[in-house]
């Protein structure tokens, strides 16, 4: 468990925690970006270069900006009067703590049975390309159709309605 792992873990968990706790919504979105960057560093640490760069490109380059635009379009940067946590915050926190307790117990209980340090796999982008067109061509095409549907759907849902058809 090297020092690099602890630093990246601290960064990611701090970013995630800040994104759920801060009052200003735009600050939450920027802390989420830090969490995304920390996860990309994790992927690079795990020798998954393609996944790491794709994470930066898609999440930081597109999803974070999308979230920020949505916050600005819904006047989210003004803090609400009734506080930022809902009335039932205690139940939510308890559920999340219970989930973490169960997951943590499962991991620590099976820790001796997990595989140890294995040598790094040498993955080239060419292998990923071959896999995408060879073995995973059906998921690739389905994801393409899904993205097209999501694109059209998001535009239609968020479009201004025509004035006469209210």
């Amino acid at each position, binding site marked *: 468990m090297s020092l690099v792992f602890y630093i990246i873990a601290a960064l990611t968990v701090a970013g995630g925690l800040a994104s759920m706790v801060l009052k200003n919504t*735009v*600050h939450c979105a*920027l802390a989420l*970006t830090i969490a995304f960057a920390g996860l990309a560093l994790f992927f690079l640490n795990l020798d998954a*270069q*393609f996944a790491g*760069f*794709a994470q*930066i*490109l898609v999440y*930081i*380059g*597109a999803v*974070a*900006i999308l979230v*920020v*635009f949505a916050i*600005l379009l819904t006047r989210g*940067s003004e803090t609400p009067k009734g506080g930022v946590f809902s009335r039932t915050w205690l139940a939510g926190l308890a559920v999340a703590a219970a989930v973490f307790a169960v997951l943590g117990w499962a991991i620590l209980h099976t820790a001796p049975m997990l595989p140890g340090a294995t040598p790094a796999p040498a993955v*080239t*982008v*060419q292998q990923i390309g071959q896999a995408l067109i060879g073995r995973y061509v059906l998921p690739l095409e389905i994801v393409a159709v899904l993205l097209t549907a999501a694109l059209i759907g998001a535009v239609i849902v968020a479009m201004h309605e025509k004035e006469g058809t209210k």
Partner: protein
Amino acid sequence: MIRNLDQIFVLLQHWLVNFLPASLQGTAGVLINAAAIVCVFPVLFAVAVWLERKGLGRMQNRLGPNRVGPYGLLQPIADGIKSLTKEDIVPLSADTAVHFLAPVLLVVTAFMGFAVLPMGRNMVLVDLDAGLLFYFAMGASTELAVFMAGWSSRNKYSLLGAMRAVAQMISYEVVLLLSSVVVVMMAGSLSLTKIVEAQNHYTWGIPHWYIFTPWGLAGFIMYAIAGTAETNRSPFDLPEGESELVAGYHTEYSGFKFALFFLGEYVAMLSISGLGTTLFLGGWSAPFSFLTWVPSWIWFFSKIMLSIFVFIWMRGTLPRLRQDQLMNFAWKFVLPMCLLNLMVAAIWRFMGDGWLRWFVCSAILLLAYAGVGLTELRKKNIGPRSYRYAE
């Protein structure tokens, strides 16, 4: 001796690293290379600033700066001293943390792109297998810095400028990626060193640069358009249009932070020119086979400075595009042409060698361009040209 001159920086780095014990040599080598990049490109930034001011001045029929040093060559130093000594004004209601971090993030992500550009034979900082993907990942992070700058200033003009800039950058990011994918398709690798090596062959003295093929030329033109839009340069500089929005998203920045934005913009320009030369203009390879004795890094930097000159030329010549015209252009014209270019490149690959594929591919691209252009022009009723002269 010629090979030594070509590899002079590599040999210099090896000589410096040999002074250290063996355990530190790896990190020291990387640190020396990174320090070289961080030192060289700001010098190129100073040269580009001087070139811009003198070049724009001459194109606008006036002298540029000519007081500070011969031909104004020391003007960038004077600019630097000015921006370092100006007072750093932060608005009272600005979000101080985000306001401070925005220029830092911009400059960091702009410099990160240079890590994968091959600047000469064996002169790349990190030879990543997915080098092009890393470059675009760093480019995508620049947009967030622009938004942070505009939002944290708590200024409606800054926010408006930032939103326009981000919308423009996202639209043209897609075009940039698609026009680079054609090169990846033909070279067979995302690694930039392999892309340059695929272009380093000569037939009858002329190199196999991708710009000398029909799909490469179309791709290069679209890459150049997208690159100009990504760095918010004229004719796509509405977000920082001086007559429109004061200064757009960097209105509320003064002193050194403004200098950082300026540096970030020009370094991004140098970076995009660097990637453009790597992908389409053959990187560090010489234009004719009898010129290969000139060191490779001289060719790379000359091509970058040539691209910078073309950027400045476009700024001095073309009028500014309006925001909706710009977005229309990206989504309705350039993006379909990019997809057509991908198909044309595939046809090129499967037709095999010969003059027929040149004819077919050029015909497809020219017909599509002319067809779309003519149908769009017919919709606008443009009368005969009329001139108005000053009395």
